[in-house]
């Protein structure tokens, strides 16, 4: 509606034109509401303008305080406000149409509702009246049915028809009215459509206008802002230029000042330079003279040098000659050497071939020798076997012979003892006690007790202790081997138990499972066996060493000062032990016999020892066992190696004690006893003589008695004979008488 011309006269002074712009369309609008709206807008715009002025003043006042801040900022703010205004107004202008349409729509709706209500009312009225009429007609039908006369009926039918026609007409009228209304509504609709399209056109126009306006004003504002910036820039430039000029002037003045200063300084320096030059000249002259003198001296020296040079040259030439000669000689020697090298190479080759040959030869030889060696080894082994066999046989024989002799000797000794006993009891009337010598109990050849295996010992020990526990007091004194006896058996046992308990890791698990059902002692035994085999303990020496080690460790723990001592002790002990091992292989034959005794002795000694030394307080901690074992195994390795060779000679008998033994057997009856016997012999001989004399005398006596009795008998006979009675004085009387 707004003619586009109104767009053209938009000035930078926006407010008034905006108002006119708004005014223009509204006045010419044929829509009253829009006109009202437009007027209102116009007024609002005017008010707005007034307000803006006031605000602008306020802003200006505010700006004045910031005047020197920037002109461009002011311009920007102004433009912004202006543009915001424009946008707001423009959108309002555009939306005005919508709002107007909305109001129109509301009005239309209200009216529509009213009309609708009226129409419905009307229709309802109509329905009521027509229903009445219809009822009337239907009631008349009933009446008509009673009529018999055709005229009446016809009349009535006519009237009915008339009524019906009237009803129909009424309805038709209503319908036509409604149709009319519909038609007008259709027209209205078409009009509305047109109007709406008009509105839309208007809306588009306004929008376009608005866009154009806004674009234009934006451009203008941009231009203004740019201008403001330009002006500001100009001002800035001017002020800066002024500043620059001022600075330049100051600079110039300073420059001048510097120049004059410089001139002065230059003059100064020139004077100084002149002075310096003169001084330098003098100096130069003096130096020149000095240097010339130096040059002369140097020339003299040069001459001297030249002479020396000549001399040296000659010398060198001579040397050169000599060297050349030598060179020649050396070449000759070189060729000779070369030749020699060739020759030597030849020989080397020869020697190499020879060497190879010899290697082959020696290899062959070596092979044959190794074969020989193998053969010999075989032979040697056989020999050894034979040797062993023979040794065994020899041993056996030796043993038999020994036993035989021993038996003989024992018989003799028994007889001697018998005699001695008889002599003592019968002749001397003294009590006789059988002499007790170790050798008397020996049977078989004397030898070193064989090294028992550690397990055997343990077994014995275990058995023994068991027994001991059973028949503690009853057991006769026993002795163990003649090994270090400072260890009590109980101690040993306890140590071994501890070892057994603590070093179970050395025993195979399979074995452990097998051991479960066994007796405690057996169990210990087998476990110890396994542990010893693991530790490398084979002989009883080792076992005792181990026990000793334990004890020493404990002692060491008790007093560290004893350590060195114990070490030395250990070494001496080791030595002694070796000695004993060498020495004690004496009496092989008596070994079996002696063993029991030895055991007894050991126990006896040990018991004594137990009495002597109080039992050790048990101080070895189970946790230390593994440490001790480790140390022990480390220590055990060395002696084991050194001891290996002597072991070979184990079978060689030690016969040092044999003679002693036999000697001892001979001296079963000591010489004092022999002397006694000699004295006894002489005395007995004398006694024998006396006795024989007495026997003779007794014989004589008896023969005399016999003669006496014979004579008595003869006398009796004579007396008792008849002749006597016959005789007055018989001889008998005579005899008798004396007798009486």
């Amino acid at each position, binding site marked *: 509606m707004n003619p586009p011309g109104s767009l053209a006269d938009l000035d930078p002074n926006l407010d008034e034109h905006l108002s006119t712009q708004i005014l223009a369309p509204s006045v010419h609008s044929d829509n009253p509401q829009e006109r009202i709206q437009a007027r209102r807008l116009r007024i609002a715009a005017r008010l707005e303008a007034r307000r803006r002025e006031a*605000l602008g003043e306020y802003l200006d006042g505010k700006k004045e305080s910031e005047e020197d801040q920037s002109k461009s900022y002011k311009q920007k703010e102004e433009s912004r406000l202006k543009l915001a205004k424009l946008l*707001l107004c423009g959108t309002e202008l555009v939306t*005005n149409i*919508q*709002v107007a349409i909305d109001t129109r729509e*509301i009005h239309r709706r209200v009216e529509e509702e009213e009309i609708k209500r009226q129409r419905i009312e009307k229709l309802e009225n109509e329905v009521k009246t027509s229903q009445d009429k219809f009822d009337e007609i239907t009631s008349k039908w009933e009446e008509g049915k009673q009529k018999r006369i055709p005229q009446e009926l016809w009349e009535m039918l006519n009237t009915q028809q008339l009524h019906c026609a009237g009803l129909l007409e009424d309805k038709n009228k209503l319908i036509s009215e409604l149709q009319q209304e519909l038609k007008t509504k259709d027209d209205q609709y078409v009009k509305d459509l047109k109007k709406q399209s008009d509105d839309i056109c208007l*809306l588009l126009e306004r929008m376009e206008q608005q866009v154009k306006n806004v674009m234009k004003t934006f451009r203008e504002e941009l231009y203004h802002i740019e201008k403001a910036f330009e002006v500001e820039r100009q001002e800035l430039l001017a002020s800066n230029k002024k500043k620059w000029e001022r600075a330049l002037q100051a600079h110039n003045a300073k420059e001048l000042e510097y120049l004059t200063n410089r001139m002065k300084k230059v003059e100064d320096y020139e004077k100084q330079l002149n002075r310096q030059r003169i001084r330098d000249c003098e100096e130069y002259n003096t130096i020149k003279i000095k240097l010339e003198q130096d040059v002369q001296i140097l020339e003299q020296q040069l001459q001297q040098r030249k002479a020396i040079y000549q001399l040296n040259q000659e010398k060198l030439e001579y040397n050169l000659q000599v060297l050349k000669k030598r060179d020649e000689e050396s070449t000759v020697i070189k060729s000779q050497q070369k030749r020699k090298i060739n020759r030597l190479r030849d020989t080397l080759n020869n020697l190499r071939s020879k060497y190879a040959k010899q290697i082959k030869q020696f290899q062959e030889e070596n092979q044959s020798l190794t074969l020989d060696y193998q053969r010999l080894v075989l032979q040697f082994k056989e020999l050894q076997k034979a040797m062993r066999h023979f040794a065994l046989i020899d041993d056996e024989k030796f043993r038999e012979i020994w036993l035989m002799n021993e038996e003989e000797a024992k018989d003799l000794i028994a007889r001697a003892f018998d005699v001695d006993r008889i002599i003592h009891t019968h002749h001397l009337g003294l009590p006789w006690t059988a002499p007790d010598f170790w050798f008397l109990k020996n049977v078989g050849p004397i030898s070193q007790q064989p090294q028992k295996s550690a397990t055997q010992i343990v077994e014995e020990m275990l058995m023994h202790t068991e027994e001991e526990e059973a028949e503690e007091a009853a057991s006769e004194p026993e002795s163990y081997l003649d090994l270090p006896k400072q260890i009590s058996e109980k101690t040993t046992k306890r140590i071994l138990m501890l070892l057994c308990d603590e070093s179970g890791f050395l025993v195979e698990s399979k074995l452990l499972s097998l051991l479960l059902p066994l007796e405690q002692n057996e169990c210990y035994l087998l476990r110890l066996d396994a542990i010893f085999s693991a530790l490398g303990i084979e002989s009883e020496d080792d076992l005792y060493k181990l026990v000793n080690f334990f004890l020493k460790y404990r002692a060491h723990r008790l007093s560290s000062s004893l350590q060195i001592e114990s070490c030395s002790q250990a070494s001496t002990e080791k030595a002694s032990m070796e000695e004993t091992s060498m020495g004690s292989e004496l009496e092989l034959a008596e070994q079996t016999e002696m063993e029991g005794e030895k055991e007894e002795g050991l126990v006896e000694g040990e018991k004594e020892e137990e009495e002597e030394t109080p039992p050790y307080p048990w101080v070895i901690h189970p946790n230390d066992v593994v440490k001790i074992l480790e140390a022990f195994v480390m220590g055990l390795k060395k002696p084991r190696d050194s001891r290996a060779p002597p072991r070979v000679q184990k079978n060689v008998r030690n016969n040092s004690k044999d003679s002693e033994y036999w000697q001892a057997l001979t001296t079963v009856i000591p010489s004092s006893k022999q002397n006694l016997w000699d004295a006894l012999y002489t005395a007995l001989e004398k006694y024998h003589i006396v006795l024989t004399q007495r026997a003779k005398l007794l014989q004589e006596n008896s023969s005399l008695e016999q003669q006496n009795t014979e004579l008595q008998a003869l006398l009796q006979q004579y007396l008792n004979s008849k002749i006597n009675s016959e005789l007055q004085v018989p001889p008998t009387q005579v005899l008798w008488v004396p007798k009486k």
Partner: protein
Amino acid sequence: MQDTVTTSALLDPSHSSVSTQDKSSTGGHTSSTGPQPSKPSITPVPAKSRNSHPGANFHRMRRIIAEDPEWSLAIVPLLTELCIQHIIRNFQKNPILKQMLPEHQQKVLNHLSPDLPLAVTANLIDNENYWFRCCMQRWPVCHVAHHGGSWKRMFFERHLENLLKHFIPGTTDPAVILDLLPLCRNYVRRVHVDQFLPPVRLPAQLRPGDQSDSGSEGEMEEPPVDHYQLGDLVAGLSHLEELDLVYDVKDCGMNFEWNLFLFTYRDCHSLAAAIKACHTLKIFKLTRSKVDDDKARIIIRSLLDHPVLEELDLSHNLIGDRGARGAAKLLSHSRLRVLNLANNQVRAAGAQSLAHALAHNTNLISLNLRLNCIEDEGGQALAHALQTNKCLTTLHLGGNELSEPTATLLSQVLAINTTLTSINLSCNHIGLDGGKQLLEGMSDNKTLLEFDLRLSDVAQESEYLIGQALYANREAARQRALNPSHFMSTITANGPENSVG
């Protein structure tokens, strides 16, 4: 054509011996190369390839070199160039793109024809430039800003829209749309359809795409008037965020018939099921579709407790108080931020229920009740609700037969409320006194930026003073934002919103 031959020469030396000048360009590339007799020497080939007449034999070629004064190296395109052209020509059969270097890809994309079938290009090409060309070829006017600034998205959205617009149930094959689904599912975020065609009732008379001109006997058979069922489509689009539907027929001309504009119950139920299943939907618009109370309630029921829905637009429908009550229930059972019920038939009761929901709502930012008839009762209820509401920023009550009592209450609200930035009371009967009271309320308010009182019988003086207060508020807001551009943008953004309504 020479180019192709030289390409073949470069690609396969044995090929060059046979190639003649009148050989077809495509045949030269795709035909078998194996059994052809190869030339004994390969060395002349590069020389020949440089020649402008490669098909000639050696002697003739030399002659031509001698005679051709315009020959220069610049005429011969590069091998890569030739390959690229070949790829472009055969893109439909053998689409090669990702394997190439970026610069070559760019070249190919610049020369691809926009007519290529979508099945080839849809998931392969992401280049915006290509889709820009596609769009410009199909549609003269393109507002890419409406489609998130992506030409590809725009292409697919408009393509789909086009298909939906011209889909005739029962006549068009549904596979047309379902086939497109796998191609466009990742790109379509917004579906905007402003017409749904009804099924054709008399196929003999009607051509597809035309409107039905059958008589009014269709009134009796309602069920077959269903429109396209969106269920499958909506379920298939994985990124769908906005659904803007109008059950309407455009350009029906003289075939007009009320029947064409029916939004049936089946339509309504299927639509409700579709939007209920779509969990990505943020904006749902169903305008100008004759949605009455029952249908509105069906739709709103399906939207209850929707996880992401933010905007619901049911403007220009026939929703009454019951529908408004449903919307009020939705307010308290969803995260709705924008509710538009403009131009419906909401009356006082509906407004009261909305006000009740609004009183304790913390999500809703904008409420539009333009062109309803809530009258003073509803207006007062809303004003009461605004006294407790701390979220609403925009309220449009234009054309609601409001008068002074509402204005009195609203002036109290203005004095209290600090969140409202825009109120529209145009086209009401506020009256002079009401205007004064609103002015009083405005004098205490520091947050309101827009207050539309046009055509509401308010005295000009009070309107002017209110305008001043608004101006002061705006300046204050601008100072607060400390960013002049922000202020400008809010104004420009508000401008079109007002004009659209």
